[in-house]
């Protein structure tokens, strides 16, 4: 059981860190660009919100399988497939939780407006300087929201991890898939313990999210 909890938390933590790093430039571009065509990327990024997780899981599984041209690039390094591995789970989770990172970051960047960035420019700060000293601190609420949402959403994923991971104990089995198997084997008492903990965790995460936004909103006033 401890192993399952550990896999779950590791997956969520790694996904959160990687996704915040990957989503920041995408969200920044979506927030700042004036081309309408950016919404094509915006729509692609939002797609995991409405796609069945099994669809994402299926395509990632195919892409990570031994026949995939993507994996052929890794064959020289002795990697034949990432299906049913922890690394594969991470890749699937990144896609699955992508909108939960990009959307709050994009909104936070858009809320900054042009003025603070123009002020910084006239004070001699170049584009990279402005990004790190003005945009990032002013968008801190977005980073906190995105972090909490991605972590919680990754803990809560089921379809993607089952497709890609196959719930191998100690490797790719997480709380949600363990619970599913307990229900299948009619061990309702054990399933209930996991389910109740997940409900409590979800509540704490959402509660924390609201507190964070409230605290920052008060500080901004």
């Amino acid at each position, binding site marked *: 059981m401890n192993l399952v909890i550990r896999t779950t938390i590791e997956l969520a933590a790694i996904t959160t860190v990687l996704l915040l790093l990957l989503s920041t430039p995408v969200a920044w571009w979506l927030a700042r660009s004036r081309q309408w065509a950016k919404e094509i990327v915006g729509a692609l990024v939002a797609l995991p919100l409405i796609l069945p997780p099994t669809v994402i899981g299926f395509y990632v599984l195919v892409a990570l399988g031994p026949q995939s041209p993507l994996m052929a690039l890794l064959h020289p390094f002795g990697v034949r497939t990432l299906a049913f591995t922890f690394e594969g789970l991470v890749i699937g989770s990144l896609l699955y939780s992508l909108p939960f990172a990009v959307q709050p970051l994009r909104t936070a960047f858009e809320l900054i407006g042009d003025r*603070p960035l123009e002020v*910084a*420019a006239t004070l*001699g700060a170049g584009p990279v300087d402005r990004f790190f000293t003005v945009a990032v601190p002013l968008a801190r609420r977005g980073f906190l929201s995105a972090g909490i949402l991605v972590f919680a959403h990754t803990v809560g994923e089921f379809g993607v991890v089952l497709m890609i991971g196959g719930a191998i104990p100690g490797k790719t089995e997480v709380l949600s898939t363990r619970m599913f198997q307990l229900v299948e084997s009619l061990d309702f008492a054990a399933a209930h313990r996991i389910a109740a903990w997940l409900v409590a965790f979800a509540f704490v995460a959402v509660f924390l999210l609201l507190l964070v936004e409230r605290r920052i909103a008060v500080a901004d006033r």
Partner: protein
Amino acid sequence: MSLRVSLSGRIGRSFHLDVDFGIAAQGVTALLGPSGSGKTTVLRAIAGLERVPGTIRFGDEAWQDGRHFVPAHKRPVGYVFQGGGLLPHLTVGRNLIYAARRAPPGAFGCDDVVARTGIGGLMDRIPARLSGGEMQRASIACALLRQPSLLLMDEPLSALDSEARGQFLGHFESLLATLPIPVIYVTHDETEARRLAIGCVRMRAGALDPGGGPLR
């Protein structure tokens, strides 16, 4: 060093800007005109915040011509935004440090600027907690610590009520008169312009207003 501005182009869908003027190497020049005449656009173009086709030369440097466009952060310009321009997440003191750290060595000393703008007591305040007048003075201090060769001000008194404006005008007059760099001062108020400026450029509907004449 004198400034030469020659801009002509469409802004947005329907606004056409067409101006050609120079300003003196010293003193305050008012950029006068009714709202919507394009004063702010001209000021933003001089600062490099807006791209309008044309040329802008300062002394022997081309800030903008057919081939080059020097970005805002590389122009030695101090810009005082309408309603004040401070970084909202930093205290007044940290805003000053932000400007000073990125500035080349120059004539404006920190203590001197703080004393002249009278913001010594505001260092630990965040911009959201400043009054309109305090915001303006802090913004000017920041703009000066950038060590500019040219100071641009966009309606600095417009956010103040009439009482504060009266007090401020006196303070402003002595501050601007002693600055060793040229200043362009955007306003729609003839009285304000007459009191602060030595010369003026008049605009109307995106072009220079030839019938305006000198300051009255």
